[in-house]
């Protein structure tokens, strides 16, 4: 990308008599399209390298013979171009007629009717489909998609533009498909024609979304609505924290989401989606959805009216509150739900509930980021924007697997790699990124601080740190420096189980590569030393001055669609919305005046505290909103026992979960496709969520339910719409005060955004840390609570995969996903597998001190020897029966990433 050096320079091009200013290095086609000059094009996509394959974007350039493909020509000063001459138009018509001769013109029954480039251009140029004899390949022959539940390839509709193949190779880099054969028999195929599911396909659906005709189409959407009859509703994805903008294509006649598309150019995902964003929405219309309030009587649920259910919740919650005090009731908010609902949930807890016992699943995942980065830097969020990733020079990934857990951030990183970025990956598994890393440190789980300390010691030794930055912008450096003394490279190499030279090289590469940026996820936080891990990564960034700049900083990739927002909204015991401390008298006064109550004074706790108190019989009532702690918290057996001791349990849910089964009352809620609101993504961007379809049965929007529960508990709450809730919150929270629905209608805004004129903040800590001076801290290495011993000699680590999402009660409703990942599994190193005599695909028994499971073994060299890895997606084989309920000392986050285990033949 050498042309970047000239970025910003423009040249003047004359197109059809108009002077058009175009960026140096851009293509003639892009320049024309940007100026609103229409040139037909089928094989062009701004995300792909141009090929000139379709021959439709031909133009005449003065002084040149014949016609030129405008997509492959770069603009030059003074270029004179004509796009609509008789010759050009005749050539395009001819090309279209040749394309039609290879295309089964089947518009009457085609889903793409109304959204097909070939149809549009054929009409525009009045192309004659009968001019040449039709030689389209036969439809219906078996091919690589025949067994797929996601998509279908119909070669009779294919115009061989190769966009699908190029997208798969260049953007997704999945390399699943290719153009096979040549001449008239060329077609899209996987390698050796194996079925799509067996190939390296990641089911992102990018090939379908770029297809200009319906040669590639979503199989499940066939016949459910033609493009021209569908209404597009722009919304924000409900899975990971990337916050992709996508369009639900809804058939208003049937109230159904037919398919999902995304617009090229949208922020942050530029029209790309992952398997979940593209396909995992069958759950919306699932017959398993909860559609009516349920009340448990004599151990059985019975259907109830809303009035009845709300009255019961109001009565019991207030009774328990009054009888046992504020610590006997607790509220668990939901990071899957909107900002507005999270704001209301903490308001409910603190007004009607009179307690600070409010939490959400950040405790389960990124609590240590909020705490650790908040302490060190003053703000617990991702410091940089997703669009900045492609310009990072050194990507430093530790405990992060973005191509699976945050796939669209993964795409941005892939783009950075294509532009020449260096890549350091510290991960005990061979992830996609690790396999392509310049340096892969495959360290033992739970040795991160040993590694980071040794790296920092080496950086100082080699004078690769930034003393000016340390001096001017940070504090407590001496104590930090003193602590590093005990951590030599050699000691770290031994403790981490990696060669010493890799640690040295990684330290150099990170410190020297400017801009460098750290990316981490739960591989860092889900440890008993999780907050310390985060503090130490902040040390590393501060030491080298790799923070507070564009494309440089420390970036926790948030796990859930709105876990950032749930924290932002104050669904935490210690803070109100906008991270305003509940103990600050001025803050209290402001909220008390606005809400008309005296705020509670109890300290409150986190979800893990709630469960512990339930086990001790101290927690009597629990309001659980959009969460299934029994599946998601460690040591499920004990957790279910603790939860069973709660006197009154309310579950506000869209499906019958393991936790809901224990509830006394279930309130049927709406999912994100059925309501309005906002989510905040991992880069602090507040984006709109929009209602696409009606909710099933009597299910109600969560913001309404929460208001009605508050009212039933004696604190009247009433809002006309979510926008009104947002405005109330913004007026009380300086970080979000400048944002309203109108401003984020098209593109979300990144907080802090204190005024209506403020453009938002792409990266944090420019010139000054949010807390003033960055705080260095002396971080010791502490091993996991459970370390391997003779009885349990291996380390079990858990995480999520590309295809499913967390407890997967949403994603598993999609047949294509279930086809791809039908069952739980354990990754075992081949040496460990050989030692107990099992091979790939055999069943293996995995045991820890808390439980055992028999699952399929994936034998390879993906994990370190002595380590095993499992996902936690499958209800029938619940991995959290095995995980350890040991917790981070600061945030009480579970140690999911390291516990002792053993494997044997079942």
């Amino acid at each position, binding site marked *: 990308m050498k042309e970047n050096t000239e970025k910003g320079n423009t040249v003047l091009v004359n197109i059809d008599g108009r002077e058009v200013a175009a960026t140096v290095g851009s293509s003639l086609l892009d320049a024309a399209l940007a100026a609103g000059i229409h040139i037909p094009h089928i094989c062009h996509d701004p995300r792909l390298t141009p090929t000139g394959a379709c021959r439709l974007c031909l133009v005449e350039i003065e002084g040149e013979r014949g016609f030129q493909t405008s997509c492959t020509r770069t603009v030059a000063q003074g270029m004179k171009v004509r796009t609509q001459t008789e010759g050009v138009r005749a050539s395009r018509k001819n090309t279209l007629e040749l394309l039609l001769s290879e295309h089964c013109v089947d518009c009457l029954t085609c889903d793409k009717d109304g959204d097909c480039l070939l149809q549009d251009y054929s009409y525009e140029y009045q192309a004659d489909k009968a001019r040449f004899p039709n030689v389209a390949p036969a439809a219906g022959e078996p091919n690589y998609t025949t067994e797929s539940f996601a998509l279908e390839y119909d070669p009779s509709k294919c115009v061989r533009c190769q966009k699908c193949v190029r997208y798969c190779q260049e953007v997704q880099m999945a*390399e699943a498909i290719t153009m096979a054969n040549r001449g008239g028999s060329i077609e899209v195929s996987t390698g050796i024609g194996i079925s799509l599911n*067996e190939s*390296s396909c990641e089911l992102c659906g990018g090939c379908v979304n770029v297809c200009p005709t319906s040669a590639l189409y979503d199989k499940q959407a066939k016949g459910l609505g033609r493009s021209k009859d569908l209404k597009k509703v722009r919304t924000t994805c409900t899975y990971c924290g990337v916050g992709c903008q996508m369009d639900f294509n809804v058939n208003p006649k049937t109230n159904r989401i037919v398919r999902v598309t995304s617009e090229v150019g949208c922020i942050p995902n530029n029209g790309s989606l992952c398997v979940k964003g593209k396909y995992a929405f069958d759950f919306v219309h699932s017959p398993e959805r909860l559609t009516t309030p349920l009340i448990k009587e004599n151990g059985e649920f019975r259907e109830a009216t809303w009035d009845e259910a709300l009255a019961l919740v109001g009565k019991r919650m207030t009774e328990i509150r009054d009888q046992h005090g504020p610590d006997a009731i607790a509220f668990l908010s939901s990071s899957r739900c909107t900002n507005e609902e999270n704001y209301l949930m903490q308001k409910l807890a603190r007004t009607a509930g009179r307690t600070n016992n409010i939490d959400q699943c950040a405790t389960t995942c990124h609590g240590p980021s909020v705490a650790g980065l908040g302490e060190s830097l003053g703000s617990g969020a991702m410091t940089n924007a997703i669009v900045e990733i492609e310009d990072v020079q050194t990507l430093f990934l530790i405990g992060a697997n973005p191509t699976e857990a945050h796939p669209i951030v993964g795409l941005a990183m892939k783009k950075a790699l294509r532009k020449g970025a260096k890549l350091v990956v510290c991960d005990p598994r061979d992830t996609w990124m690790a396999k392509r890393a310049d340096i892969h440190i495959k360290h033992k789980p739970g040795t991160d601080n040993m590694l980071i300390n040794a790296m920092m010691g080496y950086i100082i030794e080699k004078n690769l740190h930034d003393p000016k930055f340390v001096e001017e912008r940070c504090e407590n450096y001496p104590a930090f420096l003193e602590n590093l003394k005990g951590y030599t490279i050699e000691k770290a190499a031994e403790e981490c189980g990696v060669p010493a030279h890799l640690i040295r090289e990684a330290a150099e590469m990170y410190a020297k590569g400017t801009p460098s940026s750290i990316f981490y996820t739960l591989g860092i936080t889900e440890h008993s030393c999780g907050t310390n891990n985060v503090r130490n990564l902040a040390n590393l960034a501060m030491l080298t001055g790799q923070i507070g700049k564009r494309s440089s900083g420390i970036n926790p990739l948030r796990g859930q669609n709105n876990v950032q927002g749930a924290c932002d909204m104050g669904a935490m015991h210690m803070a109100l919305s906008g991270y305003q401390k509940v103990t600050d008298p001025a803050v209290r006064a402001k909220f008390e005046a606005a809400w008309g109550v005296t705020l509670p004074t109890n300290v409150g706790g986190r979800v893990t505290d709630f469960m512990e108190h339930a086990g001790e019989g101290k927690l009597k009532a629990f309001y659980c909103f959009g969460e299934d702690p029994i599946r998601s918290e460690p040591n499920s057996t004990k957790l279910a026992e603790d939860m069973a001791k709660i006197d009154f349990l309310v579950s506000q849910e869209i499906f019958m979960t393991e936790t809901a089964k224990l509830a006394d009352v279930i309130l049927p809620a709406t999912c994100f496709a059925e309501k309005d609101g906002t989510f905040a993504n991992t880069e602090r961007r507040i984006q709109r969520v929009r209602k696409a379809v009606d909710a099933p049965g009597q299910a109600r929007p969560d913001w309404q339910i929460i208001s009605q529960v508050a009212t039933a508990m004696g604190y009247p709450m009433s809002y006309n719409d979510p926008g009104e809730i947002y405005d109330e919150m913004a007026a009380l929270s300086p970080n979000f005060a400048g944002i309203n629905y109108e401003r984020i209608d098209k593109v979300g805004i990144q907080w802090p955004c204190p005024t209506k004129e403020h453009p938002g903040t792409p990266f944090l800590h420019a010139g000054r840390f949010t807390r003033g001076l960055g705080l260095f801290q002396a971080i010791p290495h502490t091993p996991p609570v459970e370390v391997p011993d003779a009885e349990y000699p291996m380390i079990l680590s858990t995480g999520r995969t590309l295809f499913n999402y967390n407890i997967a009660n949403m994603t598993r409703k999609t047949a294509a996903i279930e086809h791809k990942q039908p069952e739980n599994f354990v990754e075992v190193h*081949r040496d460990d597998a050989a030692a107990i005599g099992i*091979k790939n695909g055999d069943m293996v028994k995995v045991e820890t001190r808390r439980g055992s499971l028999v699952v399929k073994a994936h034998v390879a060299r993906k994990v370190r020897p002595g380590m095993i890895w499992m996902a936690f997606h499958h209800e029938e084989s619940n991995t959290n029966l095995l995980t350890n309920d040991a917790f981070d000392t600061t945030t009480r986050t579970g140690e999911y990433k390291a516990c002792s285990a053993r494997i044997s033949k079942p």
Partner: protein
Amino acid sequence: MTEVSKGHAGEPHVHRGEGCGCLAADLAKAEEILAELSPVDSGDLIPLLQRLQDAYGYLPADVLAEVSERTGIPLSRMYGVITFYTQFSTTPRGRHTIRCCTGTACHVRGAKDVAEALLHEVDVEVGGTTADGRFTFENVACLGTCFLAPVVMVDDEYFGQLTPAKARAIVKNYS
């Protein structure tokens, strides 16, 4: 990660990583070639495929999958190249290849009779391989040696000015 792939049309088994247990003992030949060409990158794909085809007589799917795994060259990219060039084959071929010219010059000099004689002699269909694995028979558009018409190639050797009888005699020399 499954042991036996379900190719869509009875495709050959594709090796799916370690522990698959499917690999023939002669993966050694591929290993030797990879070692000789090391380090292999995508620019070496055509020579690599040629060497593999020479060693195995064709390009077995499981060998390709293993080579893809070891070199990082995606299977899909290999397949695009393999299906583009007629020199590559993913199905077993005969020990010898008969290429019968069907160009204009050969045609007017009686290529059709030569071809029919050969097909009958070795008992095979055009494009097919004999049951005993001795020959694969291909018609080609032109061998570029019109002065020898009608012409047939067996492996790397040209035979010109053929008659059906001469052609039958020639193939008898191959075992």
